[in-house]
């Protein structure tokens, strides 16, 4: 009889709290979004199911080795790849091996749009400081505006490990919602005439350029901001595997088996890290609010900077400011949004290729920003 009583104490029903129910609903909602709306399914499915796994109520702190925060559990071991900042660079390796920088090379001035959109990161940092977060947390929250999941997780793991879950969920949620968040801002800040601008066909790119780019882009960005070595080193290394022409099998594995395995493990553990008993706090709500703000500011700065650049460009060589919004990264969604919003005004205006330039530049930009924040704010630093 006592055995039965103890068993009942083990069940999820006994240990359930309202928080668990809320988080399970969130997990189910993520899975719903992924399947029905096809919003970022490759990440929302693992994260969504991870939220379910992490929010099955159980008898905590008696050594059952079930929870992601309990030593000895599988989830805890797999979560090490997140906490130690190992998965994000490996994902960047795969991303590098599948990214084509041609669009960026064919019109390099669009690189600056990828810089402009990172303003959102630093404005949000100020907002977070104002709301009482400490500098490390503020930096990690700001990076949500980088619209780049692995970068956000990497920086959070270095600056504010306690916020990894909230920051990752916020980043991926807003990235999934880019098609809803960006268009109103883009329309608000541009005139119809601007949205109708047709850009010149882009310059063709030779193989030599594509081959030299990852090598020298890495050297330049890393010399300016060595903090971005872990992310950009892997990104450009992956890209060289792809472009070298002599390492096809390595590039192929990097962008398939390797990135898939790491994506699965990262997604499911990040999801599970939202265990209700540690996750549901007022600060998680604040992080979500700041994240939304961050995305909006990033979009706006991208668009506005494009308009600024137009002031200095010849009239036959103007930039369509819509592609400035693609500078937030969120590859390739925000580029598609630029294409869509442009096509609404003129369905024969193909902005997609032009938008891919700022889009991938945004990835580089937010990795550089993460490197800077890491360099300046990391607590382990002893001068």
């Amino acid at each position, binding site marked *: 009889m006592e055995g039965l009583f103890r068993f009942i104490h083990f069940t999820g029903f006994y240990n359930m709290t309202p928080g668990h129910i809320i988080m399970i609903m969130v997990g189910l909602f993520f899975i719903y979004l992924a399947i029905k709306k096809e919003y970022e399914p490759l990440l929302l499915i693992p994260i969504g199911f991870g939220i379910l796994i992490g929010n099955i109520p159980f008898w905590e702190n008696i050594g059952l080795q079930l929870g992601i925060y309990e030593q000895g559990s599988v989830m805890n071991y797999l979560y090490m790849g997140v906490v130690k900042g190992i998965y994000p660079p490996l994902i960047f390796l795969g991303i590098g091996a599948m990214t084509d920088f041609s669009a960026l090379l064919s019109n390099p*001035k669009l*690189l600056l749009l990828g*810089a402009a959109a990172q303003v959102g990161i*630093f404005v949000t940092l100020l907002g977070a400081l104002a709301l009482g977060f400490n*500098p490390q947390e503020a930096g990690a929250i700001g990076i949500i505006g980088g619209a780049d999941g692995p970068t956000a997780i990497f920086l959070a793991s270095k600056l504010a490990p306690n916020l990894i879950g909230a920051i990752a969920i916020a980043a991926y949620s807003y990235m999934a919602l880019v098609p809803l968040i960006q268009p109103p801002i883009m329309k608000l800040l541009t005139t119809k005439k601007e949205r109708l601008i047709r850009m010149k066909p882009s310059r*063709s790119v030779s193989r030599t350029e594509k081959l030299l780019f990852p090598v020298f882009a890495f050297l330049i960005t890393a010399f300016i901001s060595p903090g971005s070595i872990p992310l950009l080193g892997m990104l450009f290394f992956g890209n060289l595997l792809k472009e070298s022409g002599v390492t096809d099998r390595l590039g192929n594995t990097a962008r398939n088996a390797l990135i898939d395995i790491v994506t699965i493990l990262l997604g499911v553990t990040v999801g599970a890290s939202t265990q209700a008993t540690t996750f549901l706090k007022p600060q998680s709500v604040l992080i979500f609010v700041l994240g939304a703000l961050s995305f909006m500011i990033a979009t706006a700065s991208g668009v506005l900077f494009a308009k600024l650049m137009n002031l200095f460009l010849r009239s036959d060589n103007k930039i369509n400011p819509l592609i400035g919004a693609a500078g937030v990264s969120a590859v390739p969604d925000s580029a598609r949004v630029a294409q869509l919003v442009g096509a609404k005004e003129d369905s024969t205006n193909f902005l997609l290729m032009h938008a891919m330039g700022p889009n991938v530049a945004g990835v*580089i930009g937010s990795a550089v920003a993460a490197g800077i924040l890491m360099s300046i704010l990391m607590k382990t630093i002893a001068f």
Partner: protein
Amino acid sequence: MEQGITIAVLGVSIVFASLAGLYLCVKIFVRIIEFMKFGNVRKSENVTQADMMISGEVVAAITLALQLSREELHDMEKTILTMQRITRPYSPWSSKVYGIRKPAR
């Protein structure tokens, strides 16, 4: 907060510096490569593989076309999914090809 503003200003500047550096670098390289290529062409008149270029606009059109056709394929894929799946009876904790035609000893 003051520290925050310093970080923000510095941060934005460095991000711009990095990407502007990249921009300049690409510009310069393109010049150099074009210069070298011009020399090459004069020397050999051979159009090497590296010179083979495709217009960006063409690429965009092809990309779109491919994407659309792929999405259609994708839809078809789904319809045949259920059937395909049945054809994998392998499972790693018991996967031998112990055929159902062979009699059990």
